[in-house]
């Protein structure tokens, strides 16, 4: 009897079977084993496995395969065993949880699957070191080269707002004069995280009809250092201090275009070459209980003066224009992480004074703004969270128009108190699905109106590579200062967004296609000739903007080459402000295309970049023609290059940077302006709107000590 027992315990049993995915595909490479022993096998290309074991009786079969949930099966082994087909389910928990991407381009360190990294933005050739210039290489932001601000998806510049660490920055652009495009006030190197939202964004952000640019200060330097920058346009210095609990960074910069403009021929005569002096201070401090305090402060003054055609005088005449801008902005934010709560509070203050002097009149604008925000996020069981917030913004605006011949002296001013509350819920009922819904209520004291906006968005993960996302909502904005200084019996301007996108991501390649439809209503209209009369203002303007944005980025086909392609098609028409009829506005070119490529050459320690931008001609109004906005300027084309060379100078880390725009030297014309008075033959002469110089060169040396 026991001889049979011994014979059995010495005998090898075989176990075999087939493993398939829950979709029915055979799975090669699966690890099949008997728990507690080394016995097992790997499935072959047909998903089949066979192994032998000395074990008998009750056993547990364990299957493990990356990307799939592990499986345990109870077995009773008494002899050679052939198992029924075993099925494994895909494990989407191993992938990043599905993320709502409709209307969003994110570049930051938080998420693993990002479309752009902060450094990508900084090294884009066509940008010449400006954040907003960089954004035009993404779909959705139109190239309006003479202006430089953000025009998103057929929307005007005032419809896009910039937020730093959640606080709205009222004047993110340095002031500009005709044909010298504005640039961002803040250097892109200050920011570590960027989210460029072209629509459908969270209820947390209001007062922006088209888009929100969310920037996060990089207040976490790796080590204390001194940075020196010498550029063909100016120089700067920055000192960063750091200890265990915090850091502090102080920088100053002086920009003066005189040396550069004396060498490179310019279109205009400059009475005062553009110059800016600025300083900023920022830092962070960790506090008890997982708290984080962040501080940012910036002060600057800019001056410029040029001789520009006087469009309101007889054709051919010119006038001197001087611009002086002073700006101060400071903010303090505090974030605290409790177990399931995240609290964020912030306070900000800004002052901006713009002085424009022309021969016959001068304009002075003073802007005081303050803001307080609070936000609370509570997470329940990891799948559901609620965000609620309250904020209040204060604005005091004064406008003074003075005729130099002692004529008109007009003063307009208003104060606005803008409180808002919002609540938003985000849920991931399954790993494949995320939903977000919110409501936002705002009140503006200057127009004395309340408004409630709704926002909703969702994302669905089809499988590891494909994802779809939708977003919709209503967006409100109080009319701009240049309207409120004359009339306040107005309503909020409104835009409804409807967005859907589909995204594919695999092997370091990403493809996105996004469709959108924006419906504008309640846009302010007024009579151009009666701009000073409050009665000529109303909210009867409306319009739409719809289109498709495509984006493709490849970082794997060619080893050291990283490139992306973006294409936008926009169909937009509106009647607003002084438009006499519905027309395509001047900031909505029909087709836009950008190709950006970067290559790192390790042997030379150099990065090379090229960007190619093309766009169909933008609309402009020719008073000599009957129809409004019927003309189209010639198409836009630009090829820009840049290069950065890393080397060591006197033992210090240095970067030599060079960029050139419009290398082919094309004549770029954005549109035309017309004299208000006809010439001898009754025609209104045109002057082309073009860059102040054919090409822009930037040479810089950056040293880190």
């Amino acid at each position, binding site marked *: 009897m*026991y001889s049979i*027992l*011994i014979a059995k*315990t010495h005998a090898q049993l075989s176990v075999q079977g087939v493993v398939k995915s829950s979709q029915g595909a055979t799975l*090669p*490479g699966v*690890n099949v*084993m008997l*728990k*507690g*022993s*080394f*016995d*097992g*096998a*790997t499935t*072959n*290309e047909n998903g089949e496995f066979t192994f032998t074991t000395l074990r008998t009786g009750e056993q547990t079969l*364990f299957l*493990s395969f*990356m*990307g799939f949930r592990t499986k345990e099966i109870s077995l009773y082994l008494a002899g050679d065993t052939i198992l029924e087909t075993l099925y494994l389910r895909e494990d989407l928990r*191993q*992938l990043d949880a599905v993320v709502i991407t409709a209307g969003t381009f994110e570049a930051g360190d938080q998420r*693993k699957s990002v479309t752009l*990294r902060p*450094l990508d933005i900084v090294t884009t050739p066509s940008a010449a070191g400006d954040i907003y210039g960089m954004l035009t290489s993404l779909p959705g932001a139109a190239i309006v080269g003479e202006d430089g601000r953000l025009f998103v998806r057929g929307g005007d510049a005032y419809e896009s707002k910039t937020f730093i660490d959640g606080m709205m920055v009222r004047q993110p652009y340095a002031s500009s004069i005709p044909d010298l495009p504005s640039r961002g006030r803040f250097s892109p190197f200050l920011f570590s995280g960027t989210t460029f939202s072209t629509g459908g964004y969270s209820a947390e952000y209001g007062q922006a009809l088209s888009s929100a640019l969310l920037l996060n200060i990089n207040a976490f330097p*790796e080590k204390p250092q001194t940075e020196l920058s010498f550029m063909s346009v100016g120089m700067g210095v920055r000192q960063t201090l750091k200890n265990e609990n915090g850091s502090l960074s102080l920088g100053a910069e002086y920009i003066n275009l005189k040396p550069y403009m004396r060498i490179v021929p310019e279109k205009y005569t400059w009475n005062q070459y553009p110059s800016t002096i600025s300083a900023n201070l920022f830092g962070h401090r960790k506090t008890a209980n997982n708290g984080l305090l962040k501080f940012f402060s910036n002060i600057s003054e800019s001056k410029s003066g040029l001789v520009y055609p006087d469009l309101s005088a007889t054709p051919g005449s010119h006038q001197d224009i001087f611009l002086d801008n002073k700006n101060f902005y400071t903010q303090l934010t505090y974030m605290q992480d409790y177990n399931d709560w995240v609290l964020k509070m912030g306070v900000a203050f800004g002052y901006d004074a713009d002085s424009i002097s022309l021969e016959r009149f001068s304009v002075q604008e003073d802007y005081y703004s303050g803001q307080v925000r609070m936000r609370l996020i509570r997470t329940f069981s990891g799948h559901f969270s609620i965000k609620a917030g309250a904020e209040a913004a204060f604005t005091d605006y004064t406008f003074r128009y003075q005729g130099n011949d002692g004529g008109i002296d007009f003063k307009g001013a208003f104060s606005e108190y803008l409180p808002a509350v919002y609540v938003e819920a985000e849920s991931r009922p399954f790993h494949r699905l995320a939903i977000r819904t919110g409501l936002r209520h705002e009140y503006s004291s200057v127009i004395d109106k309340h408004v409630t906006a709704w926002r909703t968005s969702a994302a669905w993960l089809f499988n*590891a590579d494909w994802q779809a996302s939708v977003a919709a909502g209503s967006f409100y904005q109080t009319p701009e200062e240049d309207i409120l200084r004359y009339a306040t019996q107005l309503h909020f301007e409104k835009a409804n967004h409807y967005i859907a996108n589909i995204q594919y*991501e*695999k*092997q*370091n390649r990403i493809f996105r296609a996004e469709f959108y439809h924006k419906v504008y209503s309640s846009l302010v209209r007024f009579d151009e000739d009666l701009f000073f009369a409050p009665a000529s203002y109303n909210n009867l303007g409306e319009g739409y903007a719809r289109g498709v944005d495509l984006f493709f980025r490849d*970082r*794997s086909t060619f080893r*050291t080459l*990283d490139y992306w392609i973006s294409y936008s098609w926009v169909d937009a028409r509106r009647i607003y402000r002084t438009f006499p009829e519905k027309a395509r506005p001047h900031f909505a070119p029909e087709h836009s295309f950008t190709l950006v490529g970067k290559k*790192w050459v390790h042997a030379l*320690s150099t990065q090379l970049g090229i960007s190619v931008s093309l766009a169909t001609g933008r609309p402009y109004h020719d008073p000599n023609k009957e129809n409004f906005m019927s003309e189209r300027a010639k198409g836009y084309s630009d090829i820009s290059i840049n290069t950065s060379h*890393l*080397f*060591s100078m006197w033992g210090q*880390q*240095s970067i030599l940077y060079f960029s050139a725009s419009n290398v082919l030297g094309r004549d770029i014309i954005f549109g035309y302006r017309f004299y208000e008075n006809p010439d001898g033959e009754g025609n209104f002469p045109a002057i082309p709107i073009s860059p102040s110089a054919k090409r822009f060169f930037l040479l810089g040396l950056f040293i880190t000590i």
Partner: protein
Amino acid sequence: MKLITIISCVFFSLMTMKTAKADAEAALLGALNQLHMAASTEAARTAVNQLERIAMAEPDVWQAHYHHAYGMVMLSFRENDTRLVGQLLDKAEASVKQAYGAEGDPSELLTLQAFILQARLNADPSQAMEYSTQANNLLSQALEKRADNPRALLLMGQNLFYTPESFGGGKERALPFFEKSMAAYENNEPQSAIDPFWGQQAAQSMLEQY
């Protein structure tokens, strides 16, 4: 008669237990040899799966978790898809955690963590600065624990070799590390047959570049 049955069964199981540890060692070395000689990715995966089985069956043997993690890293070098590489290396890090739990050698485990970071860098060169800085930290700690860890010296050398000179790296700065690493490989006598032993060939081929 019943007693003899019981005694022979007990004797049999005692014998089995004593040879169990030897079995684990033999199995580990066998699987590692298979991995080393694997021509195809399928063969490599089979070897790594065996390492996984051993680690699951013998959770207290830190070297089993170590070699499983090492095997995952070697598999990741054969993979092109960044997301798959990330998953493999996440799994490798989980094995390293288990090795810590089994009271593994801190110097070897810190070095292995740095090796995982290098594999991440290999798949995603755009994060080179971040990964190599973190790896540098881990390797410094590994060398503090044991200054003549040949693998820590090798990886430190490789890190410096590929970092641009102006950022504190370069061929010249890497050389002493490769030389010390080779010397350590030649002089080192591992305490156990299953302790980490890879890397001598890599150190040799780095030195040949000078």
